[in-house]
């Protein structure tokens, strides 16, 4: 190889980053961004998980109505239950009806009252659960009236009150997750703002030299933006990946433990710990948003700093 050929081995893209990357403050900022991104992703993923669980609860609850047949003096509870079942079965709003037997009731109360009790001596109401074909208010009103006639002491519950509570709780939890996400995003923005100021103060010599060799403020700003863009991309990448990993581990652990009594109880209480695909999409969107936001903030702060210098 001749000497000239050797000279041309100089990289075609000699633009080593004008702002040095591997600095202590850069690594510290990357760690902060990674941690905050992790928290933001947990908020986003948790919000989606809660929304999905809430939706599943509401869907399940809204598909059923419950009729309580209360025992009272001189009443034949079994006969009343039969009448209620017959009326409900004939309603076009109902798909199927299931009357809980005394044994079923005993089983459902066992966690609270213990097993082996003789419930026949207690005034335990009998439950009739009916699955709805549709939630037509007119049909449900007719059914309610028919049941009131056939069993005056029966309590008709269309679950609307419970549904409205669930909806409110789901909405509050989602709002809470969104608020947490906004707080974390604000923390990242502030951290980037301070870091940009610090980096520009630390790189004062570089900025001065760049000005002397004819660099425009726009050029310098662009390089600072690129620096923080890369830094935040690395940080959010780590934080986002950690969050995804945590959800996957949680999903696996939940699936593994779902067979046990605790798992069943957890599933009943909070639904399945399975982040829907949209949740992973939300985590990726959060990472992209945070990187874009960090780049934008770095640009704004760098431009303001240069304006102040001039």
């Amino acid at each position, binding site marked *: 190889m001749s000497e000239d050929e050797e000279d041309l081995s100089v990289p075609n893209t000699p633009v080593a980053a004008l702002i040095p990357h591997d600095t202590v403050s850069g690594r510290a900022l990357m760690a902060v961004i990674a941690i905050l991104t992790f928290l933001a992703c947990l908020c986003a993923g948790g919000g989606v998980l809660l929304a999905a669980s809430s939706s599943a609860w509401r869907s399940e609850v809204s598909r059923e109505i419950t009729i309580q047949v209360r025992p009272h003096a001189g009443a034949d509870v079994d006969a009343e239950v039969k009448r209620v079942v017959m009326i409900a079965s004939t309603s076009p709003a109902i798909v199927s009806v299931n009357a809980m037997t005394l044994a079923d009731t005993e089983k459902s109360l066992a966690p609270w009252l213990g097993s082996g009790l003789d419930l026949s001596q207690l005034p335990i109401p009998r439950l009739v659960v009916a699955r709805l074909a549709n939630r037509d208010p007119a049909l449900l009103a007719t059914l309610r009236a028919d049941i009131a006639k056939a069993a005056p002491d029966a309590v008709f519950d269309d679950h609307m009150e419970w549904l409205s509570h669930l909806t409110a709780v789901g909405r509050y939890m989602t709002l809470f997750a969104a608020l947490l996400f906004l707080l974390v995003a604000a923390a990242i923005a502030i951290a980037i703002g301070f870091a940009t100021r610090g980096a520009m103060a630390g790189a004062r*010599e570089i900025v001065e030299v760049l000005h002397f060799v004819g660099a*425009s403020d726009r050029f310098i700003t662009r390089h600072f933006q690129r620096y923080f863009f890369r830094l935040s991309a690395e940080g959010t990448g780590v934080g986002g990946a950690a969050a995804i990993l945590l959800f996957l581990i949680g999903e696996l652990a939940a699936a593994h433990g779902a067979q046990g009594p605790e798992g069943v109880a957890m599933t009943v209480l909070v639904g399945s710990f399975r982040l829907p695909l949209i949740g992973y999409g939300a985590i990726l969107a959060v990472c992209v948003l945070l990187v874009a936001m960090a780049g934008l903030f770095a640009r704004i702060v760098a431009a303001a700093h240069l304006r102040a210098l001039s």
Partner: protein
Amino acid sequence: MLRFENVGLRYGLGSEIIRDASFNIAPQSFQFLTGPSGAGKTTLLRLMLLSLKPTRGRITIFDKDAATLDAEKLTGVRRRIGVVFQDFRLLDHLSTYDNVALPLLVQGRAPSAYRAEVVELLKWVGLGDRIHALPAVLSGGEKQRAAIARALIARPELLLADEPTGNVDPEMAWRLLRLFVELHKSGTSVVIATHDLGLMEALGPVRKLVIADGNVQVIDENET
């Protein structure tokens, strides 16, 4: 090209460091800026580079009043000036090649378009084998030559050099001086700040800006 009219500079409430400086740097001219150490040579160069604002008087550069230049116009002016700092001001995290290529890079030129140009200049100043070296491993003389190459690479209309031969041996000093003379012949105005009498005498009669006690005196030996 560059005109100082009654320019004065003071820091805060102190006495004036530069007093009533009035002179003109003509296009395609060559001059030394000389004076004892601490007389204000570097300060005057910084005023010429517009990195300091005078407290009074007027500086006109490339037919523009320096006081009216906004950031964008100032950038345009600086692209027409090459500067060699006494302390080199090389960026420590960039290679010699990247440092020298910096003025072309900030102008938005494609790296492939100036690669051969930068390598050729580096070879000319004797840094052909130090292309990939970082400033930290360069000797004082090598840093100075890299700083000079950076100032020359964009073919400036005005070159301001602060003690450009202060850290090199006489042979390299003479070689660099010839480089400045060649640059001058190709149309660049050159201002070299130095207190090296030998260097000034080497060129024979030449225009001098002599600064002492904040006063600037113009001595043009070609006119006498």
